């Protein structure tokens, strides 16, 4: 059954081969530690001394891929990451968690791409990697746009499901029952592979890399591709479609008050304040 809908877009179609096991691509981004306090310097987020981590939602994607491989050992997991040299730390960690190899897209020309452009570049690179399944995080916790995964699937003309909290594959791994979170509930869809999923918390519990995994990761292949390797100019993406004019800290909240008295007095006073002052209840 074919579920692709016949749009014409400038996508790159990929040849995939079911014969040699399952091929999974996991998109991985490195972000600032979520515990970090940030400052803004020259229009950029800075947080001196804070560490960088794998985007937490991407960890669910990596874990899901590794769990598939545990059930289906002829699976090959390829990480795909776009970012500067420093991203190698997260790539190494993801390899240590159990991915087999990595493709690192690294070029100054990729700096500051918006979600549309980023998805185009990822789609282009996937032209060179066969796959049955693409796993992404549901959003990167820095830009918070949640656009790259579904845009990527659209460029590849494959079905996708976003904000996935459950995946149940058929025995032959050729289709999957997928649970997706929506506001106030969930929905369940059945789709054939190839497809793209964006992973949400609740899908699994990401493992910590084992010592064996860390040792093994050192020998795993990391292929670095530049803009010219991808014939980036040929994509003719043009200028960014969304342009950041300013980045600032959010306005500070006004100083609050601590209510005093017995529980009953405090509760009565709060109820009054919320009704009369705040007009909320």
């Amino acid at each position, binding site marked *: 059954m074919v*579920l692709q*809908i*016949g749009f014409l877009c400038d996508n790159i179609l990929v040849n995939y081969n079911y014969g040699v096991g399952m091929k999974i691509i996991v998109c991985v981004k490195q972000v*600032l530690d*979520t*515990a970090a306090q*940030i400052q803004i310097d020259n229009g950029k*987020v800075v947080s001196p001394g804070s560490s960088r981590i794998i985007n*937490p939602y991407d960890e669910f994607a990596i874990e899901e891929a590794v769990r598939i491989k545990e059930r289906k050992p002829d699976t090959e997991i390829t990480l795909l990451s776009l970012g500067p040299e420093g991203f190698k730390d997260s790539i190494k960690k993801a390899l240590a968690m159990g991915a087999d190899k990595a493709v690192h897209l690294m070029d100054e020309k990729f700096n500051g791409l918006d979600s*549309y452009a980023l*998805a185009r570049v990822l789609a282009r690179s996937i032209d060179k990697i066969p796959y049955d399944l693409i796993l992404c995080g549901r959003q990167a*916790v820095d830009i*918070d*746009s949640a656009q790259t995964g*579904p*845009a990527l699937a659209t*460029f590849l003309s494959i079905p*996708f499901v*976003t*904000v996935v909290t459950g995946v149940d594959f058929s025995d032959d791994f050729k289709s999957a029952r997928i649970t*997706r*979170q*929506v506001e*106030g*509930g*969930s*929905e*369940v*869809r059945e*789709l054939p592979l190839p497809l793209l999923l964006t992973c*949400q*918390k*609740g899908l699994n519990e990401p493992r910590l890399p084992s010592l064996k995994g860390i040792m093994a990761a050192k020998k795993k292949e990391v292929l670095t591709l530049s803009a010219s390797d991808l014939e980036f100019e040929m994509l003719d993406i*043009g*200028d960014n*479609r*969304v*342009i*950041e*004019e*300013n*980045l*600032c800290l*959010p306005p500070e*909240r*006004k100083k*609050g*008050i*601590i209510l005093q008295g017995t*529980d*009953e007095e*405090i*509760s009565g006073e*709060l*109820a*009054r304040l*919320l009704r009369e002052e*705040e007009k*909320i*209840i």
Partner: protein
Amino acid sequence: MSVDCVLGVVIEHDQGETKPVSLEVLSAARKLADQVSGKVIALCLCQSANLEADLFIQHGADQVQFLTHPDLQHYIHENYAFALLGQLKKYSFDYLLLPATNNGKELSAVLSAHLGVGVATDCISLSVNGEGDVVAVRPVSSGKAHSTVRFSGKKPHILSLRPNIFRSPPLSRQGETIEEEAQLSELSKKVQDLVKQVGSQLDITEARIVVSGGLGMQGPENFKLLEELAEVLGGAVGASRPVVDNGWRDFSNQVGQTGRTVSPDLYIACGISGAVQHLAGMSSSRCIVAINSDPNASIFSVADYGIVGDVIQVVPSLTREFKKILAS
């Protein structure tokens, strides 16, 4: 009056009920339209034109377009995108606004990829600059910073708006309603049949009031105190990350940088210390009440009203007093 700018608003609805956030998006579009001699068109994809067109007009639509098809019983991105792309070919839109829900966000990505246009996700403030173009503020890093963006290139420019921010009362207005049959792909029925919806409860991102619990609740059994409080207030119950990681509450209720970002009118933080990630996910709430036994807890730094005390005692007392005032 000549129209210089057409703003489309994609209505999100669920089983025949319009999502409140859709009315908020209409109101926000109206405010922009008034600044740029614009026209607001509500795009309502549905099985039959049985949703409240009047309500859409009262919240700012000049025209309501019902795009109907038997396979548009509920939202599925393939069918919505197909129908909307057809409509965007037929009519020229300068801006397209959607709710920043899980559905709205994925739909914006698909439309952006097909049309080669930009998207600003999860906007919390909109304005018009000197050139008459829309400028949007969107939180990044879960609200630790605010990014102001503008668009460049092809139209329509797409914006998704965060729920609970743009609420505005209905106005007495006139508008027209038209109905067209939506064009869907031949696979639309197959796609439709493969989706099952489960559950329908008030979501923490859409609730006007969120009562949230942290480790200070001491155990999952005490969350019933928060449920009682939320019920009295017509709100939803959220949780901090450690609570979810302990398995006390479902992950869909987690507020914070690795959970959901909420902006309710009232956020009541019960026994939550206020880790950086949690504050990022809730500090854009309009009014924050914090209850914690530790007077130095960082949650108090963002609270409008603080109560230093034992949540297990304070919460039932709040429930009683709120019940009283709501009955009065």
